[in-house]
């Protein structure tokens, strides 16, 4: 602007002023993200991901559940008189935490906006995978703490990691056939019965979590991922099993 500018030269388009003012107002008025969302953004996740993760109240409940179970396992592990039993309980129960979390984080029972989400371009598998990863990450963090606290800190205390991954992906794959909570229940029952059977058959109570068991879980994970991807259409439609 020059020194001899006249007021008429300063005039600007009122519509532009209105638009700018509206933009400023929106930036000022938009509610701040929740603490959980701010935490996730601080960890480097973009808002389009954090929104998907924190939007479902049931997802928060699944996190609380994971926290509670991790604390319970931690308390069980403090029984130094029976360290092998505590470790067995950790390895048996820890993989079930993310399984329950995923079951509580997806589907019409968990998400009131499920039907709305189905009618959007967001692919259902991406949505369920995002939430499954969120649940896995959160519950794994807590359970790792519990594992570190295991008496006589030992690598075996982390032998639940691959089973957790395998059971979670298996649950997601089964969700193409069953409702989420039923899929989680099937995963949990098969896992508990399988571990109990190995324990009864083998001399070592922790045999189910050895190298063979871990290798099986790698196979389960890969197979379940393949099934989930091949049947991804099932996450994009309202299945008759979920219809009211």
């Amino acid at each position, binding site marked *: 602007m020059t020194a001899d500018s006249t007021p008429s030269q300063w005039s600007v388009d009122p519509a532009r002023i209105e638009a700018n003012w509206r933009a400023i107002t929106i930036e000022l008025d938009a509610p701040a993200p929740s603490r959980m969302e701010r935490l996730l953004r601080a960890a480097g996740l973009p808002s389009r991901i954090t*929104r998907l993760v924190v939007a479902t109240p049931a997802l928060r409940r699944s996190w609380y559940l994971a926290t509670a179970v991790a604390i319970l396992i931690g308390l069980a592990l403090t029984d130094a008189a029976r360290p092998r039993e505590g470790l067995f309980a950790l390895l048996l129960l820890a993989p079930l935490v993310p399984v329950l979390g995923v079951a509580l984080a997806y589907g019409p029972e968990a998400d009131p906006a499920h039907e709305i989400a189905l009618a959007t371009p967001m692919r259902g598998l991406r949505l369920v995978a995002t939430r499954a990863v969120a649940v896995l990450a959160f519950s794994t963090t807590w359970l790792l703490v519990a594992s570190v606290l295991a008496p006589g800190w030992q690598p075996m205390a982390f032998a639940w990691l691959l089973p957790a991954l395998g059971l979670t992906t298996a649950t997601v794959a089964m969700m193409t056939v069953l409702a989420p909570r039923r899929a989680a229940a099937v995963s949990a029952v098969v896992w508990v019965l399988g571990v109990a059977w190995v324990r009864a058959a083998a001399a070592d109570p922790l045999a189910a979590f050895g190298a063979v068991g871990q290798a099986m879980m790698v196979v389960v994970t890969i197979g379940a991922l393949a099934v989930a991807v091949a049947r991804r259409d099932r996450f994009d439609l309202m299945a008759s099993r979920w219809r009211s």
Partner: protein
Amino acid sequence: MTASQVMVFGLRRRFGSIDALDGVDLLLQGGLITLLGPNGSGKTTLLRCLATVDVGADDAILVDGLDPRHESDRIEMRRRLGYQPQRPSLAPASRVFDVIDYVAVLKGHDDDRARRHLVYGALESVGLAERASDRVGDLSGGMVRRLELAQAILGRPGLLLLDEPAAGLDPDERFRLREIVAGRRHDSTVVVSTHLTDEAAVGDTVLVLIEGRLRFVGQPDALATTAAGRAWIQDQAPVDARATWRLADGRHRCLGAPPPGADLVDPTLEDGYLLLTSPVVNVG
């Protein structure tokens, strides 16, 4: 976005022994279309099919030439779609801004600032921008329905599907909602299901769905006209009318084949609808 063209050919859907949809044919493009029918007539099923959440292998539905049976077409269709389901769909503990922002993410609006503007635009259009920070549970029932409408109109979809958006609302809120929906008729194909004839009357086109079959497609006046010469008023309750109900002055409004010398009256949309739906109805 321009109004979407919707074509449906012989759409069928069967649940157990019930034909929810029994050969529905439709051709829609632009305007406000009200889908009228009694409870259980198949309205929700039809809207779910159009919303691509229920897709059958034999379906013949095209929206702007896109076939929802094909994954890539279905995703593209959903970019052009706004859908408000019948069931409550927003978590009471969530904040108003957050629920719409969440749907905006689902609809693929990734840029933060642009998305905020889009969300506020949708909230302003339903009169809820001032409540952006409130919890959904703190809103009245009418506000919640408007909020559900806000997520549907987000991004100005070419096809807007609203499943009984005014159900359970008081007259003021119903009027307000109706005005918002009617405002969308010029740049979208808006399909609104209802079982209330006064709501159906504001449509450019009325579809009457009964037991899974489209029994009428046309303008509201044309539906009223179907009852011309078949609506009359008399003092005594008739015995052979198709439908009859007592008026405030104690006389009876009747539908069907009028007796000789009957006091014929101008038919309403409700008369036409009742003649379609009710072989025999006696009210009051």
